[in-house]
């Protein structure tokens, strides 16, 4: 089967599956099974008719109207799967946009984690003001550096995730080296930022390392596999023009 025929079969599948409101895992499973079916039907028809175009047309006819199938597939999705669908939609918008450069994503993550840090700081400052009866001057002085560290956490998370995702695809010495450089670089920058602000001590260094490198590294490890699956989906299915 030539690649263009396979693409046309995938388009048939994608027309039916893409509009279904279900979690990514369920839809991936539907795609694979329907593609396996269509490929087998196409081969059967090609053997019978001996012409690719005619076999494709007959395969599409046997498969049925994709829009009608979408409705039937949707009806087979359990209601709870809507939660997975919404989480996937959120992840598509906020966490991982296929095709986005790592630099741009790092900037976006920095802004998001900076905003989350600011929100947390405001809550803490309001709490302190309520307890002390005045704005704590020491805490206010530290706001800017804490925001900077908060934003940097987003950058580290993005760089570690991108590096781990690449490592999942190709376990080469170069990929390991890239990850090691990112971890070492992030450690140096975050310790310089943090210890420069809060003063040098072993305890502070360890806490800073945990919050700005260790924690993002663990989170990146959890995200990398999911993002790799999204990336593969986009390359194989998401980029198909189904209209």
């Amino acid at each position, binding site marked *: 089967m030539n690649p263009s025929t396979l693409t046309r079969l995938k388009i048939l599948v994608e027309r*039916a599956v893409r509009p279904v409101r279900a979690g990514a895992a369920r839809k991936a499973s539907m795609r694979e*099974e*329907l593609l396996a*079916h269509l490929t*087998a*039907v196409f081969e059967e028809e090609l053997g019978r008719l001996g012409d690719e175009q005619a076999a494709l047309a007959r395969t599409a006819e046997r498969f049925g109207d*994709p829009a009608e*199938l979408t409705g039937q597939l949707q*009806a*087979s999705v359990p209601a709870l799967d809507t939660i997975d669908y919404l989480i996937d939609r959120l992840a598509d918008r906020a966490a991982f946009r296929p095709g986005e450069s790592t630099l741009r994503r790092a900037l976006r993550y920095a802004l998001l984690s900076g905003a989350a840090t600011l929100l947390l700081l405001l809550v803490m400052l309001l709490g302190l003001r309520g307890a002390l009866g005045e704005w704590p001057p020491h805490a206010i002085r530290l706001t800017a550096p804490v925001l900077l560290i908060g934003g940097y956490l987003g950058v580290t998370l993005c760089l570690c995730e991108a590096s781990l995702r690449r490592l999942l695809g190709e376990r080469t010495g170069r990929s390991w080296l890239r990850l090691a450089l990112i971890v070492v670089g992030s450690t140096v920058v975050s310790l310089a930022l943090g210890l420069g602000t809060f003063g040098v001590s072993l305890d502070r260094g360890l806490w800073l390392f945990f919050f700005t490198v260790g924690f993002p590294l663990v989170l990146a490890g959890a995200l990398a596999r999911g993002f790799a699956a999204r990336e593969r989906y986009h390359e194989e299915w998401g980029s198909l023009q189904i209209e």
Partner: protein
Amino acid sequence: MEPISGDKLRGHLETMVLSTLERGEAHGLEILRRLEEAGCGLLRLKEGSLYPALYRLEAAGEVEADWEEEPHGRRGARRRIYRLTTRGLQRLNEGRSEWRQFVQVIGGILGATS
């Protein structure tokens, strides 16, 4: 005889699928072949429609499925192999009783019982 398709099949597809699986586990295309064979070529089913029916049966615990280990050259796409569960067998027997009753009642009204 005219082919049986669309609305006439609605409501019976799941029981018919269970019936094909009584002969042993099978993937989607094999289930369709069995249906076609049992229907003497008179069943006209849009093949895509089989899968939502299988997913509903699976969600109801009436069939179980496993991915085949090798894609057998289908460009990496694997098939799922379905098999009947005890609950599925029970549903099939209920479906058969309902069908006999249906044929008896409607056949009686139409004056078409054998």
